[in-house]
């Protein structure tokens, strides 16, 4: 299970990254604490490395996460030091791009937020009932009515930090603090695809049927992952997400 995603600070944490081998065929670029802005930096770095890959065939597709980027490489085709050198220049160019975006006026940042809001991915959800068997338990734990939980969950705007864990699974930042809930004591063996769940400071949509210990509050018919689509994953890192309650 993924760990909590902590609410981020808006400032970009441009700590100097570290470059460490992981195993004999991987390089891990790590930086700063796991805040939302670090996830955006990981995406920018991974994109810069990916863009440079045609010129470095020994380097594999990078996997960005919360505050790190994993870069696979063929250690018999390129020395670790040379891999670090190549990747370091991609990091410099990604950070320069991020810094120039940051130096814009606050108005620009607000405009960015507005644009993200306008293009929010909307996910229609049937809350409660058989689709969200833990909704009442969650409400009781939080001292709220089930309708309040739905209202809070659906009124918040979430940000896709990165994808991982399962095909099309998005780590979403931005759960209202009033909805922070412990996991279930005993995990379920099978959670149906499309289930919307919360646990800790996080919410998610299960793209596939799988086991899990999160609190299940609703379900969507939206397909989160389809390998035959041009864009297989619905959730794009950096995108804004809104859950829309369906009438029952």
């Amino acid at each position, binding site marked *: *299970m*993924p*760990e909590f995603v902590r609410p981020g600070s808006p400032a970009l944490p441009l700590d100097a990254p570290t470059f*460490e*081998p*992981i*195993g*004999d*065929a*991987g390089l*891990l670029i*790590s930086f700063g604490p*796991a805040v939302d802005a670090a996830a955006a930096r990981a995406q920018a770095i*991974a994109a810069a490395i990916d863009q440079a890959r045609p010129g470095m065939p020994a380097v*594999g*597709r*990078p*996997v*960005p*996460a*919360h*505050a*790190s*980027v*994993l870069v*696979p490489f063929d*250690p*018999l085709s390129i020395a*670790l030091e040379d891999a670090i050198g190549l990747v370091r220049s991609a990091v410099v160019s990604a950070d320069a791009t991020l810094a120039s975006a940051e130096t814009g006026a606050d108005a620009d940042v607000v405009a960015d937020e507005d644009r993200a809001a306008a293009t929010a991915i909307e996910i229609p959800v049937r809350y409660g009932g058989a689709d969200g068997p833990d909704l009442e338990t969650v409400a009781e734990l939080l001292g709220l009515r089930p309708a309040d939980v739905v209202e809070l969950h659906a009124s918040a705007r979430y940000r896709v930090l*990165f*994808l*991982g*864990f*399962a*095909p*099309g*699974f998005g*780590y979403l930042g931005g759960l209202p603090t009033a909805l922070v809930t412990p996991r279930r004591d005993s995990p379920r063996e099978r959670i149906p695809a499309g289930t919307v769940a919360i646990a800790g400071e996080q919410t998610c949509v299960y*793209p*596939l049927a*799988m086991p899990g210990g999160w609190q299940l509050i609703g379900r969507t018919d939206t397909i989160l*992952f389809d*390998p*035959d689509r041009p864009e*297989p*994953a619905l959730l794009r890192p950096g995108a804004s997400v809104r859950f829309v309650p369906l009438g029952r």
Partner: protein
Amino acid sequence: MTSPVFDVLEGGLLTTIQDAGRREWGHLGVPESGAADPWSLAVANLLVGNDPADAVLEMTLVGPSVAVRSDAGLTIGLAGADLGARIRGGRRLVPGRSHRLAPGEVLEIPGDIPNRPATGCRAYLAIPGGIDAPIVLGSRSTCLAAGFGGLDGRALRAGDEIAARLAAGARLNRPELVWPDPDDAEWFGGPVPVTPATLRVVAGPAPGLDTMAGMAWQVGSAADRVGVRLDGEAVPEGIGGEATTQGMPWGAVQVPADGRPIVLGADHQSTGGYRVVGVVISADLPVLGQLRPGSAVRLEAVDRTAALAALRGRREALVAGTAALRDAVGWGALIDSAGG
């Protein structure tokens, strides 16, 4: 051109179509997939004149029963664990070589061997031209978790058909060849581990590998393509725990807070949130794929130089083996039979 080769009579415990895997989609959370023992994938393919990365059948502990459907028979390449392959009512087929099968013969892979214990976990069967399956996200491998690739993303079952991707003019019958293994005949062309098996591991990023290398481990019953749980005494407190979610490589030795390590396999999740005390070296990923539930295993800490020397050794052995197969058959004959 596709050519029907087998009718599946029984699917076996977990038989899937796998190739060299899906390397470009970790950023969307897609598992790498591919053969759990990549060395045996290559050997099985080379034995029938294929590209080492072509799609094969990966069989787990108990293999399928299949009837030969092609009118002229065919040659198969077998590698990896010896799961007792035989012709029904007839001859034994050992791994590490290719075998000609006649039309109508039934190939059985029962999972046990007369007069000695089976070793290893996974056997690989290659057919000339490779197994026909659609390419999904760059690979024919089966992704069991998300149900795509291979045969509709699932394991083989009775009633399925297996077909070969044959180039125009290529034949399903190829020369019968033996994989040259100068080191150990018992390996049959696959890295079937002796007991206890040793996984060589490069330490880090989290500390603790040295402690764990001194401990005795057993492969748990929770061992599948996603990962292998190691049973033994719990790792001392302070080593395991949660960590910031990061990209995970195949072979990562994760230690959760309960102190029970998990070594990630070919179908591992692209990211994970447990501490990683080390990663199995690339040269030993085939051994990881052959660990049988219940078997003893040791972790040995090695440095990067040793890891790369071992990987270089494996690549050289593959090149040398390929050259020896060429010499045995005459490269021209192999090219001819491949339709090239």
